[in-house]
């Protein structure tokens, strides 16, 4: 009661932002470059962080020009690190507001927010003896977390690490992977170049005479593992790569040994087609076909009665969270395409398919 109505956190955070209890915040301890446009951020989570399993991802909130933006990143660090820190490895995309900010502008001391870890792309609790970890591009991060965790745990079964990158310069964690390959006879690291016709770099050198190259093909794994049914396989990367892997395991009848995670591209705003999209009022389990009216009117036409006031964008009584999709603000014409964004439903028209928490 002493701090009512603001809550103790609102005072504690003035002293140290990571002391709050209502959300997990983390402090950026260090930043190290990994490859062109790729950096690793070492984070020290504050109160409330309960750890994560290798392969899981977190939603990271960062303030970019005054706005809090949230994006998902796989944790790249070992799940059994003893300093309590976690790492995310971020590749800056040309038009990625958050990734560019994290790579170019965030410095040590910045405070970020972390969601609880999520995702079931994780190692089984009883570690399989033989593993195959396949990744493409920045999809390397969750499988790198797995490899680091296995090594920290002293795993001595054979692990094959098959990674696809466009060029040599694009390989994230290249030096660390080479060092692991040298130091651990049980780990076989294969890096495959997809971007040129040159022979891929085979970092294990003397183990095989066949250098792999090009995008994922069935014969790439045939040479590396005895049989798909005898290996626990994990694959993470672009949709095309993951689908090719799935097809191959499916042909071999071994899909129950395969775990996959796709790195989906950010949804592109639909063309300005304002009629005919599916408008989903998620909390009410109601979906209607957009007639082009503002969301509030469409919700009322569907028999819902959301709170509202001025119906002209003044009072913010009707503000709801847009879960996904694109809406147009009638007053400014601005399109909003960010997921989980508050919108005023009395002045927002759906553009294409939209889901609202209503």
């Amino acid at each position: 009661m002493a701090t009512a109505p603001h809550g103790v956190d609102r005072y504690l955070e003035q002293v140290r932002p990571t002391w709050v209890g209502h959300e997990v915040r983390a402090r950026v301890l260090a930043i190290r470059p990994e490859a062109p446009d790729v950096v690793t951020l070492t984070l020290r989570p504050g109160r409330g962080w309960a750890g994560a399993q290798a392969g899981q991802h977190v939603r990271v909130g960062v303030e970019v020009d005054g706005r809090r933006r949230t994006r998902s990143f796989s944790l790249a660090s070992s799940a059994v690190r003893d300093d309590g820190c976690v790492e995310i490895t971020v590749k800056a995309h040309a038009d990625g507001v958050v990734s560019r900010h994290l790579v170019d502008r965030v410095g040590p001391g910045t405070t970020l927010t972390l969601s609880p870890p999520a995702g079931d792309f994780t190692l089984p609790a009883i570690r399989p003896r033989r593993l195959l970890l396949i990744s493409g591009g920045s999809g390397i991060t969750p499988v790198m977390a797995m490899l680091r965790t296995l090594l920290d745990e002293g795993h001595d079964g054979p692990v094959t690490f098959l990674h696809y990158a466009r060029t040599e310069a694009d390989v994230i964690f290249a030096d660390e992977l080479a060092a692991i390959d040298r130091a651990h006879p049980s780990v076989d690291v294969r890096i495959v170049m997809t971007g040129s016709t040159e022979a891929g770099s085979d970092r294990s050198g003397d183990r095989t005479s066949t250098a792999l190259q090009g995008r994922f093909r069935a014969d790439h794994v045939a040479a590396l593992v005895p049989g798909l049914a005898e290996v626990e396989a994990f694959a993470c990367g672009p949709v095309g790569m993951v689908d090719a892997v799935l097809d191959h395991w499916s042909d071999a009848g071994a899909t129950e040994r395969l775990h996959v995670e796709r790195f989906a591209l950010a949804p592109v705003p639909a063309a300005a087609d304002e009629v005919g999209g599916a408008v989903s009022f998620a909390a009410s389990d109601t979906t209607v076909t957009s007639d082009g009216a503002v969301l509030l009117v469409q919700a009322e036409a569907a028999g819902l009665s959301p709170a509202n006031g001025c119906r002209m964008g003044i009072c913010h009584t009707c503000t709801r969270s847009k879960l996904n999709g694109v809406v147009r603000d009638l007053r400014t014409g601005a399109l909003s395409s960010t997921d989980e964004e508050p919108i005023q439903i009395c002045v927002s028209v759906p553009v294409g398919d939209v889901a609202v928490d209503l």
Partner: protein
Amino acid sequence: MSSTATLTPDIEEIDERDETPSVGPVPAGRPALTAAELDQLGEALDAIRDEILDDLGQRDADYIRDVVRLQRALEVSGRVMLMAGFLPPAFLGGVTALSLSKILDNMEIGHNVLHGQYDWMQDPSLDSATFDWDHYCSSEQWRHSHNYLHHTFTNVRGKDRDIGYGILRMTDEQRWRPTHLANPVAALILAVQFQWGVALHDVEIDQVLSGKKPVAEAREELSRVWEKARTQVLKDYALYPALAGPMAPVVLAGNVSANLVRNLWTFAVIFCGHFPAGVATFSEEEAADESRGGWYLRQMLGSANIKGGKAFHLMTGNLSHQIEHHLFPDLPAHRYADIAPQVQALCEEHGLPYNTGGFAHQLGSVARRITSLALPGKEDEPVVSRVGSLVSRLNPLSR
């Protein structure tokens, strides 16, 4: 809180005897702008709004966080100083710091955050949907009575209950009743207890007393008001005094003083926003079927600014830029000073009044109006004839 069912169109009846044209410094109601001129005005104001929206960023986030940090520091230091309040300087310092803290909490932070001015930051601690403030009025109720009713129906008689809070006679057009003789005293009581006045706004006690609103409905609303107010009352008047042990009476006196200072200040600023001479009120017919330009026009004519320095604007929550605030209630308020010259220039261009003046001037103007409207008739009619009218109305033989 979306119901409009309790709004009765006859909340404020028009005194038909007073339908002669006004002769005040600025004519009441709307200047005769054509529909095309209104559209042009609307577009020009929309352009100002868009320019600010495009420019929102780190500067605004840093600004509001600095204000929050200042408020927290003032609050903590105020409460600590009051614990040593047996020393007169500590008592004075404590009351000052706590008063400033409460004023910042309610005005530059609370009022403005609850308008959604910082929703774009997506910071849960500054989100209008979940924010709460150090006030007896719950934030949910406030968003209904203030953001929706007052800002949508600004100065529309019978709809905007901020016109006199259902107690005071604030416009010539309100029918005079004998109870209005107490106008100045009622205003003073409202000012001293402004926190309660705001919290009880939605209960519409005047409507309950006149039988237009069911008692049961009011009772339910009262219990909701108490639910919010209780914690704030107990915090200031029980918990902190108790923590002070033998110093309890000193801390209690300090907290009462800080709440009083906040009440008087917020009352003064808010009444200066809509009731100095020259500010117009509107009939429901005048406000019906408005274009966006027409809505903007009503906001400009129904609001008044207060001149002052940076610190003054901060302590009023930038409601000293009431005109800009009513045009753009969801733009961060510290931006109003930047756009005020553009708004003033637009007013000149369209031949519209831009009501502004020093604090003493505007407050004096409001005080004159409150006192004058205690009598029947209009503010600018000769006092002698109004006293005569009062005598004849109160004299049972003249009926």
